């Protein structure tokens, strides 16, 4: 697929995802701690602006949903590897515990199945220091346009490394 090693491609994509992030992903201050074709693990530092209460101790559910959606995007991009465009079809989230914390937030996501047109993701949110307790669980479905050279918004593939 490429003339660079696969693990180098994955590392390069994860680095580009990090350095070229803007908008919400930049604002969440997400750091990719683990980025592989098998799954990703992202860390968000606690941010009082994302709280649902005046005391700033409870993260709003929408933040956890945003974290899951962000993690699904990277996980599925890495797992599929030849994406021109991808769009979230649907997103389902169960809030299992109150998001009461001032710790870092950890989100893990992976692509558990893919077809030519569709990728299925599953993921979970935990707090740093209590990673045995899942705070939120999510699943998502993404519509894919496959192509060797990215043209759409995920045009992160290195041009020099692409051979058909």
């Amino acid at each position, binding site marked *: 697929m490429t003339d660079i090693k696969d693990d180098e491609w994955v590392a390069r994509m994860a680095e580009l995802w990090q350095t070229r992030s*803007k908008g919400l992903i930049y604002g969440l201050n997400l750091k990719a701690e683990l980025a592989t074709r098998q799954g990703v693990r992202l860390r968000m530092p606690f941010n009082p602006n994302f709280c649902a209460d005046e005391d700033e101790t409870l993260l709003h559910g*929408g933040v956890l949903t*945003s974290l899951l959606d962000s993690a699904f*995007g990277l996980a599925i991009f890495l797992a599929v590897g030849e994406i021109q465009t991808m769009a979230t079809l*649907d997103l*389902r989230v169960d809030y299992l515990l109150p998001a009461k914390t001032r710790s870092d937030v950890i989100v893990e996501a992976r692509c558990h199945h893919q077809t030519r047109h569709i990728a299925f993701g599953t993921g979970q949110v935990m707090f740093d220091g209590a990673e045995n307790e899942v705070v939120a669980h999510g699943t998502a479905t993404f519509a894919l346009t496959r192509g060797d050279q990215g043209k759409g918004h995920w045009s992160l593939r290195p041009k020099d490394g692409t051979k058909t």
Partner: protein
Amino acid sequence: MTKDELQAICNKIPYFRFLDFTIETADPDGVTTTMPFADRHIGNPEAENYHGGIVASLLEATASLSVSDDWETQPPKPINLTVDYMRPARSGTLNAKATISRKGRRMASVATVAWQDNEDKPVAKGLFHFLLV
């Protein structure tokens, strides 16, 4: 709760200030909101589209405000959600409407829709459940 009471809540909640939406209407069967576009809402590096999580957040916020009887003592607790993304949400104002499907003493179910220029062309629809106790 009245439109002014709901707006006062929105002004106090950090994440609602981050989203920066305002209450348009507040009726017993639901609430509508409107949110100006901001760079911090962008979802991907190349296109200036909303992040899917921001769309879901506006829907959840609008849904929760529509089922609250007394936010100060008992804010609705979100249980789960499903969001269908139907069109890209492009740079521009995003509107949301929540309609209460069923509200009991303990539980509420709320249907939501988000749109931009044309309410007949929704960018997303969402279903939310809340615990009210």
